[in-house]
């Protein structure tokens, strides 16, 4: 009985008791949701364009951030380091396309998935090889302080990240909506072979998409990196982006954002109001369970394309 009270009633009483704190939790959740979305966005791009579940996205975030901060540390100005890193990511995309994807056209999804994990390993080793495993500080002038609105605290860096993510999503959504390439990407994701027979050049398509994903990874890497330093654990955030991804739907750019917001708020609220009942750290799995329950009702996620079941 006590247990039930603690689970079903007490948290709500607490919410009612201090609505401003609740508001803060929700805002905090929205903000971390945005940060997840930034990573999830990269996944979506690549999945949408080729049906590849790119597990290396997390490592790409790390790799981009490593290069960027490495170049900064080497004395380059931001205005030089940034385009240079973008160039590196494009080069990376080119290598991936050349050496991996083009050789695995028309293979099962799971094979491509594995290949991206291989890419992840490689990049991780390569990144550490280039820039060592040290933690790097990344300071590109993103404000790190907080604003206080009465009781409610909002981190400036979060707001900054949200704005950047918003811009990114709008641009990408427009890109997919209004270019010929957008449609071609979906075709490629459906059927590699058929896409080739209608003359879609898989090579350049993939180059473009992976480059854009690399760019998104760089942005995510800068956001995350200036928060927690550039270090190995950046690559692990990808795990947190996964529930966001499936909740929003693998193929939807706006889904990545909405999914991120839902997951962010959900897990923060759960952790803060229910976590203590279970000894804390329920955040670790809450997002997955939330996503799982959600998928039970919508197996393709919120905005995912309907899964076609026909005989």
């Amino acid at each position, binding site marked *: 009985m006590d247990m039930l009270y603690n689970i079903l009633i007490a948290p709500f009483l607490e919410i009612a008791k201090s609505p401003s704190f609740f508001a803060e939790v929700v805002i905090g*959740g929205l903000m971390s949701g945005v940060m997840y979305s930034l990573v999830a966005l990269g996944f979506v791009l690549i999945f949408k364009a080729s049906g590849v579940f790119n597990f290396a996205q997390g490592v790409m975030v790390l790799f981009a951030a490593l290069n960027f901060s490495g170049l900064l540390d080497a004395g380059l100005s931001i205005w030089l380091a940034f385009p240079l890193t973008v160039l590196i990511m494009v080069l990376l995309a080119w290598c991936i396309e050349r050496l991996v994807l083009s050789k695995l056209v028309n293979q099962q999804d799971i094979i491509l998935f594995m290949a991206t994990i291989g890419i992840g390993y490689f990049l991780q080793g390569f990144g*550490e090889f280039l820039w060592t*495993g*040290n933690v790097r500080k990344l300071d590109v002038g993103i404000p790190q302080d907080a604003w206080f609105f009465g009781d409610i*605290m909002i981190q400036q860096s979060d707001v900054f990240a949200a704005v950047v993510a918003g811009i990114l999503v709008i641009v990408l959504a427009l890109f997919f909506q209004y270019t010929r390439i957008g449609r071609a990407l979906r075709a490629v994701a459906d059927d590699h072979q058929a896409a080739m027979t209608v003359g879609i050049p898989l090579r350049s398509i993939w180059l473009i998409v992976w480059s854009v994903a690399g760019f998104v990874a760089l942005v995510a890497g800068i956001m995350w990196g200036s*928060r927690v330093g550039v270090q190995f*654990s950046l690559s*692990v955030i990808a795990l947190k982006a996964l529930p966001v991804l499936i909740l929003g739907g693998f193929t939807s750019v706006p889904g990545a954002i909405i999914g991120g917001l839902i997951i962010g708020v959900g897990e923060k609220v759960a952790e*803060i109001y229910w*976590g203590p009942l279970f000894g804390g750290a329920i955040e670790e799995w809450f997002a997955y369970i939330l996503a799982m329950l959600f998928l039970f009702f919508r197996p393709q996620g919120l905005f995912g394309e309907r899964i076609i079941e026909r005989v």
Partner: protein
Amino acid sequence: GTQNIPLLVYRTGPYAANGIAIFAGMIDYFKLVNNRDGGINGVKIKYTECETGYKTDRGVECYDRTKDEYGSIYSPVSTGITYAIIDKATHDKIPVFSMGYGRTSAADGRVFPYIFNFPSTYWSQATAIIRYIAKDLGGMDKLKGKNFAFIYLDHPYGKEPIPFLDIMAKKFGFTYDKYPVPTTSMTEQKSIWLQIRRTKPDYAIMWGWGAMNPTAIKEAASIHFPMDHFIGNWWSGSEVDVKAAGMLAKGYKSAAMHGTGKNYPVYTDLKKYVYDTKQADNLASAGDVLYNRGLVNSAYVVEAIRTAMKKFGNKPMTGEQIRWGMENLDVTAARIKELGMTGLTPPVKVSCANHEGNNPGIFVQQWDGTKWHMIGDFIPAMSDIVRPIVEQEAAKYAKEKGITPRSCS
């Protein structure tokens, strides 16, 4: 022959930043001994490295791979690996020196003859930190009614002090809230700090490692938590933890088992015999907290071997002989002076029954935005409450494993 010593290192993976500094210190000290003294009493040290990536199974494999040729003494700098090789090493008669980490109850040398965890264990450290806080507050009685936040890595390592916090909370009348940080999302602590912002604890205590530390310190700074009321243990107080936050982390404190910086005579030798001959393992980290820890770790190992040689002769020592050396280790202040480490490391004396050493406790250091500074005096642990529990836990272990504790008298 040479004195072979295995090193289970990690310079890659999630904890690379920490490992790079600490193993550089360990190795540079061995080089120093070789270059300056021609080895330990003439026996050169030959070490071999095996990369574990802080992964337990890789650590076990490294142990097995190195133990036949190099198996003299292990310092894995990982609580997980330590746990996994305790039984193996005991079986193989090779000592494990888990300096300030690993299994706390191994301090009972009767049950764990091969495991050493001086100069201090997690439990001792926890009591000393509470004692420091009490001092800060102005007396043990001031602890009553206070509320603390305990932020820890959700890992065997992070959980070690919890039983002691419980005991002390009862004893001194304070309360504390637990905030586990999962190993898979060490950099995502928003909800923790939101809660801390609300509960406004009097002090925050942290048992962190790897990427968790800088994140926590940054988050604390950004919610304007008073940094001088935020105290980490000695695995949460090195340069890699605070550098990312820089000035924001100013005021943050942590426990320490040894001094910081390069201001010790031993560094003159290091410069002369190691750095200037371009043999430094990682010069950038010299003088860092973790680098110094590596130095101290190796110094103890070397002294133990020296002790053993007194009994067994100046030749390469076996694991069993080193064990004897460890158990009879007595690093006095005078000896420390000879080593050029006065102020860097406190004296310690180990005995058969007490593998934690006779002098458990902590220093406290504080970050001023650019450097760590020692503040205040050595704070002894509350051994009176720690030791009984150590013995109780060890006895429980002995019973489970069917071990008859040896007699130390």
